[in-house]
């Protein structure tokens, strides 16, 4: 396997400039916050109306969607692939394993921006909301991530 030429800063700039309301969730968000975890992929959560804008913004980076925006809206998920793999959750709201309905618009309102370079920032959910997103899939590693996020939140207070 050859080393990827993927330019992560250009990727984040393209997402930020796309006009899409795209929230970085998953372990990349944890890493950006300061937690040393490993992951292969980028995970984003977007509202269905913004899939087209996100897809178009990433085409110049040779990253292409596996579904059209309409298919993505119906399916609730799709992937944008190139040198890297981006999982995109497309939903207005998602339920957690303990029955809480998490609404994208609310999470977007509470988002925080992390600077990743000159004039480039990444939008991520607040720590409280990131914990809720970890209750969507409810896998064993999501529990670990929640425990780490709770500890991080406690140390930041």
């Amino acid at each position, binding site marked *: 396997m050859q080393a990827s030429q993927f330019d992560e800063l250009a990727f984040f700039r393209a997402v930020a400039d796309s006009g899409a309301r795209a929230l970085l969730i998953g372990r990349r968000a944890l890493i950006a916050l*300061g937690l040393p975890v*490993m992951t292969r992929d980028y995970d984003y959560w977007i509202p269905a109306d913004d899939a087209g804008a996100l897809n178009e913004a990433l085409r110049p980076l040779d990253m292409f969607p596996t579904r059209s925006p309409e298919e993505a809206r119906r399916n609730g998920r799709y992937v944008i692939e190139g040198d890297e793999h981006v999982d995109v959750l497309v939903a207005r709201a998602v339920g957690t394993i303990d029955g809480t309905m998490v609404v994208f618009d609310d999470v977007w309102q509470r988002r925080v921006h992390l600077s990743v370079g000159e004039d480039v920032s990444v939008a991520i959910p607040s720590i409280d909301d990131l914990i809720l997103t970890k209750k969507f*899939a409810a*896998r064993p590693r999501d529990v670990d991530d929640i*425990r780490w996020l709770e500890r991080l939140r406690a140390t930041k207070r």
Partner: protein
Amino acid sequence: MSEIPKLTPEQRAELEAWEERRLSPEEFAARLAAPWTEQEREDFDALVAWFNRRYPTPIERLKATRHLEMQWRRNRLR
């Protein structure tokens, strides 16, 4: 140092399926409620402090872990 065990594709698939499984609400809640030991808390705080000292900005942290992930993937394929 002992060698990393080599997994067959079937074993790897089984392991990944196990890791990707959805927990029951009861199992999820029980795991979440498990208390930290003092040692776990200390280890966690020390690891996070080191990580943030070594990589003080979000983009440095993202780049470092991406690099490590690629190294790990390359080694896994050998």
